[in-house]
């Protein structure tokens, strides 16, 4: 299961309404792309869902359970996993340790979510094995023992996605997963998302600027503009709708014209 619903989700910063009464239901087995111009409130919407930011109004529910007042860590353990747009890792731990710390956070077992004080970290082989599998899938296994601080930016982006995979969530939230990657690194990450889509119990939310990626992967597109939900539907139909042409694609072509 992974039925995520936001109802009238709103956040205000002073007089500015960054996300304005967004109501939306995300079904398991679908990938929803969230598009909109810069500053439309896409990342803020993610922050409200995953609990990094407290909403000023509205609610977030997962499988019917209200998570509106839960902390970010509780929401993650409940099944809401997310990756960050700006890379956000544990720099002086190794690549493997980063992923394993994430595996251990949500898995049940003798490690007791890290509250086991008296066993040796390297003895928890099941966790290490899982972390290695994830590193394999994002082609980072060769760098498992490197410190994260020494990784090139593209590898850090891949690790960011690996950390999300490690959480084994019901809802996966990707915030521009391929931003800042070189062209040859993008396919590995996109393949991972394609594979995840095959699992019909997972709900996937994707913020992405590249329209070709959105067109290929999304089952549904929602459009945010100035914090408000302005369009919602099948990819072809949303992209063609006049409101998106002016609100989103219009803005893009204007910036291009300015540049």
């Amino acid at each position, binding site marked *: 299961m992974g039925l995520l619903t936001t109802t009238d989700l709103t956040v205000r910063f002073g007089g500015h309404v960054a996300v304005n009464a967004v109501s939306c239901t995300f079904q398991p087995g679908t990938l929803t792309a969230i598009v909109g111009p810069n500053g439309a409130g896409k990342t803020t919407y993610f922050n409200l869902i*995953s609990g990094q930011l407290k909403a000023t109004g509205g609610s977030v529910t997962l499988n019917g359970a209200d998570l509106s007042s839960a902390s970010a860590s509780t929401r993650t353990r409940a099944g809401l996993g997310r990756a960050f747009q700006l890379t956000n890792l544990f720099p002086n731990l190794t690549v493997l340790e980063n992923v394993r710390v994430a595996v251990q956070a949500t898995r049940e077992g003798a490690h007791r979510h890290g509250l086991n004080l008296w066993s040796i970290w390297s003895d928890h082989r099941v966790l290490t094995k899982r972390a290695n599998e994830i590193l394999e899938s994002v082609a980072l296994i060769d760098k498992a023992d490197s410190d994260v601080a020494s990784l090139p930016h593209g590898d850090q982006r891949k690790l960011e996605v690996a950390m999300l995979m490690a959480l084994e969530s019901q809802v996966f939230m990707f915030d521009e997963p391929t931003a800042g990657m070189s062209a040859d690194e993008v396919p590995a990450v996109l393949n991972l998302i394609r594979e995840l889509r095959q699992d019909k119990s997972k709900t996937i939310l994707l913020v992405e600027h590249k329209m070709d990626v959105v067109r290929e992967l999304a089952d549904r597109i929602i459009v945010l503009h100035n914090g408000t939900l302005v369009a919602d539907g099948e990819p072809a139909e949303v992209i063609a709708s006049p409101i998106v042409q002016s609100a989103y694609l219009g803005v893009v072509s204007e910036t291009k014209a300015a540049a």
Partner: protein
Amino acid sequence: MFKRLLSNDLPRDRTLAVLLIALLIALAFAPFIFPGVKALGIAAKVLVFLVLVASFDLLLGYTGIVSFAHTMFFGIGAYGIAIACTRLGATWGAVAVGFFGALALSFVLALIVGLFSLRVRAIFFAMITLAVASAFQTLASQLSDFTGGDDGLNFKLPELLSAGLSFSEEPFLGVALNGRLLCYYVLFFTALASLLALLRIVNSPFGRVLQAIRENEFRAEAIGYRVVVYRTVSSVLSALFATLAGVMLAFWLRYSGPDTSLSFEIMIDVLLIVVIGGMGTIYGAAIGAALFVVAQGYLQDLLKLGSDATAGLPWLSALLSPDRWLLWLGVLFVLSVYYFPSGVVGRLREMARDPQSKH
């Protein structure tokens, strides 16, 4: 077997391994290798500081929490034994009451301070611990009926641990087999067990979460860890080990006063030792404590030698006067922090990983 005893966290550098083994041998046979009251006193102080600093490393080096209340817990341990033995007499019952009473008080205080203030930003937590520690220090000197005020408390321990008790008429390898020797070995094995226990804790699944919190608290919370819980557990554990170090100190000195356990100077010493040894390594606490305590104990003697040798050059002789030992200690620290920012252990490990690296 040996690897497991060290929780799979080996020194990872040959020089460091040699240093640690040398230190272990020196401390294990100190009464036989370094005869004399002063030398044994310094060895015992190394053992006490080793536990105190290693427990602070759990907090500062592994969890990234800056606390100024660490000597408060150290003092609770020392005063716990002192007050119990003064009030209840020199019995094992009194020692047990003092020991468990001190642990319980430290547990409760660390839990309260942790739960109320580990949510706030690091700088505020440091301020709060400073305030609590100062309040506690004042309290200890004001409640003089209980604590002996600024004079502290002299007390007796059960006979088994006192110099008056002899196990054998014949000295063994030139050393009298008495309660004092037994007391030293109680300290030695307590310190060894504590160090191995702390090594185990920092290499557990819990220890890695602490490191993750130190590295990026925001992300640790985002992947599902309730940061305040882990920080509080770390801070309570660290307080309990500091209390144990205080108990060790009281055992050795049979005295407890504000200057030996509660003072802010000791807090600064602990901070320096953990930085010099290498934060976040545990082994650094052992190396740092040995270097620091020995330097503190013998720098004056060394300076006296230097001062006498340079008597022909009055200005140099004056500079090397034993009274200037604090100045030289300060110079040593500035140099060591400048050249080994990651501490002795960190530096040695860096060199082992990358032999070409210079500074």
